[in-house]
Each structure stands twice: as structure tokens, then as C-alpha cells.
């Protein structure tokens, strides 16, 4: 079942004529001519679509929180500042099929009553920005954007804004600050963007994938979307699969397939590369807790784990993880967990905005301690120190970057403590090039 990537391999799908030949912009026709904004919102609510940026908050509910005072403009902002290590789905979608996003932007803006909308794209993706600009111009030329769209009286201007190259600008309020031309520091909440967002006006910020899905929902109805998937995880999800698998890439999966299927079936990842065994998986982008092979395939209760929001988080952080943004990083037994954790910690250290003290100082501290452990300078007390620092960052920061920095470190120690200890106790072995810890009796040990 493919919704967003159905026509993605059609040649020239990035041009508006080819896109329209394959049913493109029919949702705009239907929404603007035959439906009211409230009806569109209602369909999205019915669909059960959940935010695809990581938090999984229901999109329809987010829309209904939007304050609608008289005489104040409202804005829709598309968060395309995808920078999480391991996640590259939005990049793929915008690059291959920019009109899928633009169609969703028009439909969503109509539903929210926004007359100006923005797509905030990660600055490093300059060529994607050019593709989007070109596609937007085509849509203007066809009368799908601008004044009086399709003769309906509804006006919409759509702008692309390149980011300055900061991961933190993917946090919605930092994104709005950056969009206003300021330093990208997250704001204190409340007030939430739905009340005071861009230029202090009510604003909805949604992920690329969430917005792109709305046009299919308008075309086929919320119930049809809700029919795909399991329970409260409805529809399809783009998964960025990378690491030690045979077929890395972006896959659109119906939510609810098993993790085992996703890793080993030829339709998706195609299994672990030859001669190697699954050791660990980071299931939702670098910020979610890492899980060892035995816990990612089955839950602690022994059930098969599914690719859904609920099943992946089954067991809480003790034995579970999160679907997050769908950055699925697979590691075989040659991967060193300490090295991997250091890489993530380094990233968050580099990307912390420095506004609030736990994250500013804590991320740097964890990076330095992990660096020592990785390079044979670890001390016995460092492991507990890392756990404690992570605990003191988590939940005490302005924005979720603090949590995102602390979870991978805490989880790596939770599930691979013996590997950290091995690094500290045997620095001469651990610092040898290519040396990896082998746990006795583990399924991945050779």
C-alpha cells in the first residue's frame, strides 16, 4: 500500500503536467470547490493521522487547537528542517516529488484558513530548495497558488525559506524564531504556536510527511486512511532504513507490519548483510533509545514487535523505544555501541543551542566523557556518571533537544553496560582498530 510514493518513480513526476496526469492536485480541486475548511479538518481528524516528525501527536487535534481570533492572520508552516541523524525521508519526498508536498500545503492551508504558508527547508538541501521553488512557480502558473485559487476566492501565497544549518531549528518554536529572522532559540512554552506562533499569530507547524498525507485523505476520505494500520497507528509511514542491511533506502510501509518482516523481507530491507547477525537497532532516528536484537524483534512480553507507535514503545524505555521520525538504523555485530553513542553525543553537543544550562553543559559533558571511554581513558565511575548526567538533563530543558540528547546515552548503557565496562577495563583491547566487544552467549556473538 503506497500513498505518498505511489508515483514517485514515474519519470518527470517533479513537473506539474506529469504530476497532474497521475491524479495530482485533484485534492485541491475537491477541497476548495466541494468542501468547507471544517470538513477537511474533520476528515483529517477521522483519519487518525499522527504527526510524522517524531512526537506522533494527532494532526487533526493539533489543527483544532488553532486559535481563530477575528482579524488576525493564521499561518501554516511546514517543518522540512529534517536533520536527525538516520532520518532522510522528507528529503527524498521533496526531491523526487515536490508537488506532493505543495498539494498537501494547499489543502492544509485551506483547512486552517491560512493565506500565507511557509516551507522551512534545511539549509544544506539547496538543490531541493531549487526544486521546490520551481514547482511552486509551476503551481502559480496553473492558478493553484496566488489570488483567487481556481476561482474560489481563496488566496494562498507559499514561500520556501532555507534554514541556516541548525538541527535545533527543527524544534517548532526555534523554527519560528528562525523564520522571523532571529537567532534560532526555542521559545518557552506556553504560549504554544497554536495561540502565538509566527509573528505572534496563531500558527500550525507540521512535518512534510504529515502535510503530504492530507491530500490523499481529502481524496479518499479519512475512514479509508484509518482502515490502513493497526489501532491508533493509522496509514502509512516513510521509513529511512540505513546501516548494515542489504537494501538501505526510503520505504513506505503500512503501519502494523512486524519489525522482523521489515528487516528480513526482500520487499523492504532484505535482511542483514551476508555473514553477519543483527546486534541492535535504533528504530526512530538518533534520539530514540537503542534496542538490542532480542528486544527489537519481540517485546519483553514475548509478542512480535510491530512497526507502530504503540508496539515500538511497548515496555516504556526499560524495554521499548519509539517510532520517532522513522530513522531505522540497523547495526550488526561489527558495530561498536560505545563508538555509536559517542557519535550521537557529539552531534547533540554540536547542535545544542546553548540557551538553557542542562542541555548546554550536559551535552558537552557527556560527549567528553564518552570520548574518554572510547579512547581508553575511561574511569569506573564514568558509566554511572553518564547515567546521572543524562537523568539530570532529561525533562529539565526548554525544548526536547535535551531529552533527545540524553535518551540514546541512557539507553545504550541500559542495554549494553557490559560493552562500556569492557571498554573501561580493557582499554588496550578496545582501542585496537576494528576491535569489537563480543557478549558471551548473545544471539549476535560469533
Amino acid at each position, binding site marked *: 500500500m503506497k500513498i505518498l510514493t505511489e508515483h514517485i518513480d514515474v519519470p518527470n513526476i517533479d513537473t506539474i503536467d506529469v504530476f497532474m496526469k497521475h491524479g495530482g492536485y485533484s485534492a485541491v480541486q475537491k477541497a476548495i470547490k466541494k468542501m468547507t475548511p471544517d470538513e477537511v479538518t474533520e476528515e483529517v481528524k477521522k483519519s487518525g493521522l499522527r504527526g510524522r516528525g517524531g512526537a506522533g501527536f494527532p494532526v487533526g487535534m493539533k489543527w483544532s487547537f488553532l486559535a481563530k481570533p477575528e482579524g488576525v492572520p493564521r499561518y501554516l508552516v511546514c517543518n522540512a528542517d529534517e536533520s536527525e541523524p538516520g532520518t532522510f525521508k522528507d528529503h527524498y519526498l521533496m526531491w523526487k516529488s515536490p508537488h506532493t508536498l505543495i498539494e498537501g500545503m494547499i489543502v492544509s492551508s485551506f483547512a486552517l484558513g491560512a493565506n500565507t504558508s511557509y516551507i522551512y527547508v534545511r539549509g544544506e538541501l539547496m538543490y531541493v530548495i531549487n526544486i521546490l521553488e520551481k514547482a511552486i512557480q509551476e503551481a502559480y502558473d496553473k492558478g493553484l497558488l496566488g489570488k483567487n485559487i481556481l476561482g474560489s476566492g481563496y488566496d494562498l501565497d507559499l514561500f520556501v525559506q532555507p534554514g541556516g544549518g541548525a538541527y535545533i531549528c527543527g524544534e517548532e518554536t526555534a523554527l519560528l524564531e528562525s523564520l522571523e529572522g532571529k537567532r534560532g532559540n526555542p521559545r*518557552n512554552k506556553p504560549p504554544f504556536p497554536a495561540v502565538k506562533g509566527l509573528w505572534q499569530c496563531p500558527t500550525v507547524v507540521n512535518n512534510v510527511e504529515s502535510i503530504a498525507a492530507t491530500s490523499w485523505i481529502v481524496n479518499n476520505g479519512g475512514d479509508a486512511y484509518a482502515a490502513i494500520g493497526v489501532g491508533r497507528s493509522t496509514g502509512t509511514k516513510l521509513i529511512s532504513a540505513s546501516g548494515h542491511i542489504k537494501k538501505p533506502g526510503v520505504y513506505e510501509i503500512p503501519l502494523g507490519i512486524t519489525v522482523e518482516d521489515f528487516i528480513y523481507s526482500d520487499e523492504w530491507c532484505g535482511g542483514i548483510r551476508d555473514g553477519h547477525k543483527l546486534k541492535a537497532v535504533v528504530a526512530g532516528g538518533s534520539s530514540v533509545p537503542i534496542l538490542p536484537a532480542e528486544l527489537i524483534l519481540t517485546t519483553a512480553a514475548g509478542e512480535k514487535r510491530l512497526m507502530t507507535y504503540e508496539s515500538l514503545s511497548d515496555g516504556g524505555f526499560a524495554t521499548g523505544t519509539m517510532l520517532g521520525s522513522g530513522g531505522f538504523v540497523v547495526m550488526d555485530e561489527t558495530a561498536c555501541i560505545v563508538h555509536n553513542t559517542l557519535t550521537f553525543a557529539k552531534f547533540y553537543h554540536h547542535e545544542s543551542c546553548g540557551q538553557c544550562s542542562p542541555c548546554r*553543559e550536559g551535552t558537552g559533558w557527556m560527549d567528553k566523557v564518552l570520548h574518554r571511554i572510547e579512547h581508553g581513558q575511561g574511569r569506573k565511575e564514568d558509566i554511572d556518571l553518564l547515567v546521572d548526567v543524562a537523568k539530570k538533563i532529561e525533562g*529539565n530543558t526548554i525544548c526536547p533537544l535535551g531529552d533527545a540528547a540524553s535518551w540514546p546515552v541512557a539507553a545504550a548503557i541500559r542495554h549494553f553496560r557490559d560493552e562500556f565496562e569492557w571498554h573501561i577495563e580493557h582499554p588496550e583491547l578496545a582501542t585496537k582498530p576494528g576491535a569489537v566487544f563480543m557478549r558471551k552467549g548473545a544471539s549476535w556473538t560469533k
Partner: protein
Amino acid sequence: MKVTIDNITLEVDPGTTIMQAARMIGPEVAPPAMCYYEPLKGSGGKCRACLVKVTAGSEKDPRPMPKLVPACITAVQDGMIVENTVNEDVLETRKGIVEFLLLNHPLDCPVCDQAGECHLQDFSFEHGVSSTRTVEERNTFEPTDLGPNIQLNMNRCILCYRCVYTADQITDGRVHGVMHRGDHAEISTYIEKAIDNDFSGNVIDVCPVGALTDKTYRFKSRVWFSKPVDAHCECEKCSGKATIWYKGEEVIRVTGRKNMWGEVTDFICNGCRFDKKKTADWVIEGPTNVSRHSVISANKYGANLIKPAFPVLQAARDYKQINDDRDRSFLGIQPALPKSKKK
């Protein structure tokens, strides 16, 4: 609106923050503030020193808030119940915040002009632990010259953003700000431009640490050897209300007048601050009422001994472990405190 903080209930107006309500009760209950500065709009929420536990959100929705919330920017709701000094989680987190703030701080108090009136010293004394867990090298910064009046030592900065808000809100044009990000973020001007503005000196007063100090006062005296006196003068630019600091007969420093929370409400101009260094320039009002737990008050105005505040009591409780009865009896402290509420 009714709000309960540390089992003390009071009535406040709608829109009051937890911090403001706690300050109405008194210093024993008020959470520490490193970045929040009431006269500056938009300040607060950054240092996380004032995190408190809300055990009941409001009368209507009595569920506890899932995370600790910053007292300085969280508005009270009717029927809210807040735990500050009686909550173990809060105190434990605060220990962590002290640790984070000191992680890259040079701890050069012996040569720092701010020592004695430094909020970070107070904060770490009241809430920190005496040992360190870090062996890492501290971050350092290249010196930046901010002009003839203001001395910047970036290594001491805790990035509270107070000086940024001050420049935004009371001077006519901000030329300095925060550059870079994370733990290498620093206060600087655009390409080392001097801060030149009639009210620029106020960034010195709002700085909670020794990052921004007065160049005309540099290394002249320790704060506690000088004697603060409230004084005023006729000034066209500002209110003229200041505190002047004597060493012997000499005026060695002029600052804004700080209230009990260490906040200046009447900002003064650079003329008053840097140029009026003679007693004849001022009309003396009388000795400054020096705030609680300050070393400045020692040995100056008679036996104005301050009753130990809660954090001191707590430090004394911790001190019991090494069983030195002499010190406790000296402070007149009861051997055990009422057990704090566990969550």
C-alpha cells in the same frame, strides 16, 4: 487566586508567576533565580535554577504537572499547589543545575571582582555539593574588548541573556549579543565593536556573575571590604538613585540600587556610574540595607546577624553526618528538620 507554595497558602492576582508569588512569601520559599530579572521583560526560563514541582495544576484540574516547571515563567492557576524546598526531586535537580553551571566556570573567585555579590556563589553555596565529578578540561574563550568601561570575561559567563535584554530594553540600540551555539556560545559584539551608549553600564549590574565587571573598579577592592551607601544626585538622564561604595573616604564604585532579590529597578546612566567618583557629587541618604546572607554586611553595621535560611539549615543537616556538634550549636540549629515530603 489561591496558590499554595511549600504548604503556605496565599491570595494572588491572575497572571502572577510562581516566582512572584513565592517572593511575596519570602526568601525562605523563593526559588533561586540566575537568569530571571523581574524588571527585564522576557527574561527567565533559561538557567532552570528555579524549577519547582507542581503537585496540583489547579482547582479545576488537580493533576500534577508531569515535569518540573520553571517558577519564573509559569503563571499560577487557582488552587495550584507548588513544592519548592520540600521536594526531594527539586533539590536533587537543583544540585544538578549547580553542577552544570560550574562545569565550565573557571572558579576564579579569589581574583574575581564579583566575588561577594555573585549570584552563582550564593547559588552553589546554597544548593550545590562540595565535590566535583568532572575531570574534563574547562572551555575557555579568547578575550573580547568591549570598550573603556566594561570588562568582559566570557569564561565566567553563564549565558543568562540578562545583558542582552538590558541592551534591548533600556539602551537605544544593542550592539552585543550571543554568538555561536551550545557550550561554545559567547557574548560578544559584532566584530569587537565597543559598547558605547549612555546606559550601557547597566549590563554590569544585571550580570549575575563576574562576566561583565566595571573597568573603573577593576581589582580596587574586595566587595566585602567596601561600604555601600545609598545616595542620589541631580541627573538629567536618569533617576540619579544609586549605591556608592566607599573604601575609607574614597568612592571606589557606583552601582544601581539593588532590591532584596539583587535586582535594579532604577537603572542609572554611565555619567553617574563612571564619572561621579567624589562624595561631593552625591547627596548621601544612609547606609544601604544589605540583603540576606551577604558577606557585605559582616562587620559593618553592628550585630545584624541573619537568621539561617532554609538552605543553610539544610547544609547544617548534611553537616551532621560528620558529627561536629560545635558548629551546629553555634548556629542554634535543631538537630533534625521535619522530614520533607517524598513524592
